[in-house]
């Protein structure tokens, strides 16, 4: 039969199923296909902390949302246009997020009385009018999968497991995705189990062919590649980009990277990834606990490696005392905090940015630590390199605040030219630095006049033997000192050293196209995408708003205070209860307005647009009416359309 082809500028698809149904893999493959096709995209994986929560229940639902477009987009989208639900629980758990008119593809196989009851349905929602507002396509994905792979003689259970590939094949057909990369992937992944490999490839192709032949689906959609800056691209998650950034930090500084880490969600993938890169001289030490992880990293830094520790909020709490030791001993150290919902164990697999104040102040005594934050998955690479630059140049621990959304979310990443990456000079001390001739001594706390950094003399360097530790140091010579004036001086000097990092930072970029905005939206970390999308939406409706995003949270860029005072109102959206707001108010005495949510999910662009619109109305004394994007794009909201 002839199929219609309809042009769309963007689509948001959510794959949802049981946590054992392979939804993350399905979403990831669809994403790779879209990336290779050339769409811009952003993804949002969302899964429970339990590895296999009870089958068929609401807590066991795992989903993967991918937003892809023919233009530059910033978020994974507020609401899915298409939901693929592999069982009743997946339908029920996600239905509330769907806008009217959304498409729902349901695997009917699991809509049994037992599974309906597990999901809390009293009656089959596919039978009544409950879903009348949506375009529902009930399809027996599992049954067709089992039939398609019959020839391989698998058990019914194993055969049914390939249903996610059938679904992927169907969606790949529907959106004209290239299939080669998925077939190659399956052949490689299951190379050792030919039956499973063939079943998955067959199910994938069967799904595609079903789309081609069935009368259930009469429309195919076309989303053209997005124009992007010249370069070679790949799709990348934040954790992968961060791991690559750490490898790059080692290469660019000529130091061997030493990672001391204890597994913790959502940071463990960095440990997994770095453990593959021993050929770069990377050592990965899986420690007995969080404290030993940072302890070993500090030891390695003392020995002349680039010490790194990776963790999440609870791990930072455990490492606090050791980070203080690194502050006192003034050794380079990278502390990576992939933030998750807290406090305590909190929401291990969900995102949040509520560790900012812990990073800033979570140590005893005056213990300043520089803080950097990436804004998108690909940006984790640059943030890691920047953290390495600061740590090595200023001989200090540096906190890098990623989060669960950046860690697992992905986007197309323009692969940087290695020759254009900054070089980092460890500048090890090799000769005595105090006094002349035979009297010359090595003073481990004699500082560089410009950076206030102390010399880094590593064991094995003759004549520079010295002892460091957690007790207060005498200025210069570094021996134990309990002198009151010395302590006051050293506390101020350690703070001054961190403050001086600001002198090495570029001016903060403010996106204020006409320079006429009265409202500034200032953010940090992973809220960059939703803030940017919200700002675009407001501008598209004809209003002025400025946007700036902080890479450096400590110290702040030197021009931040002046920028804040330039605007009538400053909005600070955060996935916490106002931690950056608190710092800005304290430092600049500027009455910033917070927008705060802690739902374990990224902020929504549409919500932010409304908040921004409200502030614009106040600041300019006008009525603000945010017009949604024109109809006919096939999308249900317009926050990402180019202004």
């Amino acid at each position: 039969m002839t199929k219609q082809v309809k042009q769309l500028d963007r689509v948001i698809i959510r794959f949802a199923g049981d946590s054992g149904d392979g939804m993350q893999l399905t979403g990831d493959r669809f994403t790779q296909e879209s990336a290779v096709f050339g769409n811009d995209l952003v993804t949002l994986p969302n899964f429970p902390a339990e590895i296999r929560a009870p089958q068929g229940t609401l807590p066991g639902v795992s989903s993967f949302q991918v937003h892809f477009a023919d233009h530059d987009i910033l978020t994974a989208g507020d609401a899915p246009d298409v939901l693929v639900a592999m069982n009743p629980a997946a339908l029920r758990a996600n239905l509330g997020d769907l806008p009217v008119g959304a498409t729902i593809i349901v695997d009917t196989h699991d809509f049994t009385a037992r599974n309906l009851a597990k999901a809390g349905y009293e009656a089959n929602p596919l039978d009544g009018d409950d879903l009348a507002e949506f375009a529902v396509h009930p399809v027996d994905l599992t049954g067709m999968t089992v039939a398609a792979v019959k020839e391989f003689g698998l058990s019914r259970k194993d055969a049914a497991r390939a249903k996610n590939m059938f679904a992927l094949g169907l969606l790949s057909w529907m959106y004209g995705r290239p299939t080669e990369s998925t077939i190659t992937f399956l052949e490689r992944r299951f190379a050792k189990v030919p039956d499973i490999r063939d079943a998955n490839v067959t199910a994938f192709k069967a799904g595609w062919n079903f789309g081609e032949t069935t009368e259930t689906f009469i429309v195919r959609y076309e989303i053209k590649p997005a124009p992007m800056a010249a370069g070679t691209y790949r799709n990348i998650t934040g954790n992968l980009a961060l791991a690559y950034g750490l490898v790059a930090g080692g290469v660019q500084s000529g130091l061997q990277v030493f990672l001391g880490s204890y597994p913790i969600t959502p940071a463990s993938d960095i440990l997994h990834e770095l453990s593959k890169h021993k050929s770069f001289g990377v050592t990965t030490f899986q420690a007995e606990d969080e404290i030993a992880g940072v302890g070993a990293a500090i030891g390695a830094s003392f020995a002349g490696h680039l010490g790194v520790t990776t963790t999440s909020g609870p791990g930072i709490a455990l490492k606090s005392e050791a980070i203080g030791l690194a502050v006192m001993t003034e050794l380079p150290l990278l502390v990576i905090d992939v933030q998750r919902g807290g406090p305590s164990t909190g929401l291990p697999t969900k995102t949040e940015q509520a560790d900012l104040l812990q990073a800033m102040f979570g140590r005893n005594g005056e213990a300043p630590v520089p803080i950097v934050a990436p804004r998108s998955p690909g940006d984790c690479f640059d943030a890691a390199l920047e953290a390495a630059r600061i740590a090595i140049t200023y001989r200090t621990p540096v906190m890098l605040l990623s989060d669960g959304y950046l860690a697992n979310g992905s986007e197309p990443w323009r692969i940087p030219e290695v020759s254009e990456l900054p070089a980092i000079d460890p500048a090890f001390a090799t000769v005595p630095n105090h006094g002349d001739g035979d009297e010359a001594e090595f003073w481990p706390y004699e500082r560089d006049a410009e950076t206030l950094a102390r010399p880094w003399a590593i064991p094995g360097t003759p004549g520079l033997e010295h002892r460091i530790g957690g007790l207060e140091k005498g200025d210069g010579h570094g021996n134990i000192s309990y002198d009151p004036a010395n302590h006051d001086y050293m506390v101020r000097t350690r703070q001054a050293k961190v403050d001086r990092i600001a002198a090495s930072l570029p001016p903060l970029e403010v996106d204020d196209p006409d320079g006429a905005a009265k409202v500034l939206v200032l953010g940090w970390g992973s809220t960059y995408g939703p803030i940017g999308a919200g700002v675009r939406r407001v501008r598209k409706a004809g209003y002025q708003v400025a946007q700036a995003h902080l890479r450096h949270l400590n110290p702040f860029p030197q021009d931040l205070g002046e920028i804040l005072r330039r605007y009538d109102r400053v909005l600070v959206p955060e996935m916490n209860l106002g931690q950056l707001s608190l710092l800005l108010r304290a430092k600049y005495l500027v009455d910033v307005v917070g927008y705060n949510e802690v739902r374990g999910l990224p902020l929504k662009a549409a919500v932010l647009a409304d908040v921004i619109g409200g502030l614009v109305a106040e600041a300019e004394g006008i009525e603000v009416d945010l017009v949604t994007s024109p109809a006919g794009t096939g999308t249900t909201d317009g926050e990402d359309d180019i202004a």
Partner: protein
Amino acid sequence: MSTDSATGSATDLGLPGLRTGTEGVPTIGEGETQTGKDFTSDQEVRWCPGCGDYAVLKAVQSFLPDLGLRRENIVFVSGIGCSSRFPYYLDTYGMHSIHGRAPSIATGIATAREDLSVWVVTGDGDALSIGGNHLIHALRRNVNMTILLFNNRIYGLTKGQYSPTSETGKVTKSTPMGSVDHPFNPVSLALGAEASFVARTIDSDRKHLTSVLAAAAAHRGTSLVEIYQNCPIFNDGAFDAIKNPDTKADAIIPLVHGEPIRFGTPLESGLGSKALVRDPAGSGVLVVDSADVDEADVLVHDAHHPDPSTAFAISRLTDSGYLNQSPIGIFRQVERATYDDQARAQITTARGGAADDDQQSRLAALIGAGDTWTVV
């Protein structure tokens, strides 16, 4: 092998062709000499008068030149406590770190650098209480380092609370009615963690202490040396039974590899009045009168036995209350691959001879791999 010290000596490893603990660490040049003074820093030592730490410091400063290693390639790491001030008094590289964490910091140093001789100085509170986890994991991993555990059975720096090695019933500032805690036996703990080298010595027996240090340094892997160390302020006399010339023959059970284990006031034959035999009724060992036992039944100490069970049984002969009896010497010394050697070997294998100057192009290949597309 010298055995004229009260507790004997045991520096003969008897292990063929194995890498020593200091292999890979640069040595001083031919004709160069070092003395204890070279290892003495300019810092004033600040322990209490009469503290056992002085004797250990002196012994270590005198012993280090014997290693013949370059001073700049020696690193001492400590935690928190009286003994943890140790690194400040040695003119080597050193770090006085945080409470209990010295083994983890030393693990990072030792794994990063094969060319360093790494030493940890710790106490009973530091190593067995707040840092217990790091100690047992260092021992099981067998990282190449030597841990000197100063055991004075009390908290000194915090002024006299009971420690995890204090005897049950001990009256201290924090236990006015007596401690109800059951103490650790550090040697039993280390053997339980499958440590490859476990020894016990005494601060005041310079000769034995030095011989144990030499054996520990020569051992490749984590060497745990428990040093009984008197605290004259808060726990004076804790080790009197094994130090008093009148009682020590009956209190010290000397362990020398390959020798029958006898101790006690000598008989006319010159042999000790007591001996160790295997307990016929169980898996342990028993103290019996020498006169009652055939020479052939006396337990011969085998520190190299792959099974730590007998060494553990011997460690159980330590009094957990007032120390009237304690085995002293090297309990266990076996060859086992070290964590750091293997970690470095994996890196060498992964590098497969790749030149370091190649790193940038290999980085470009790494980040440019996978499904890519090019926009022109």
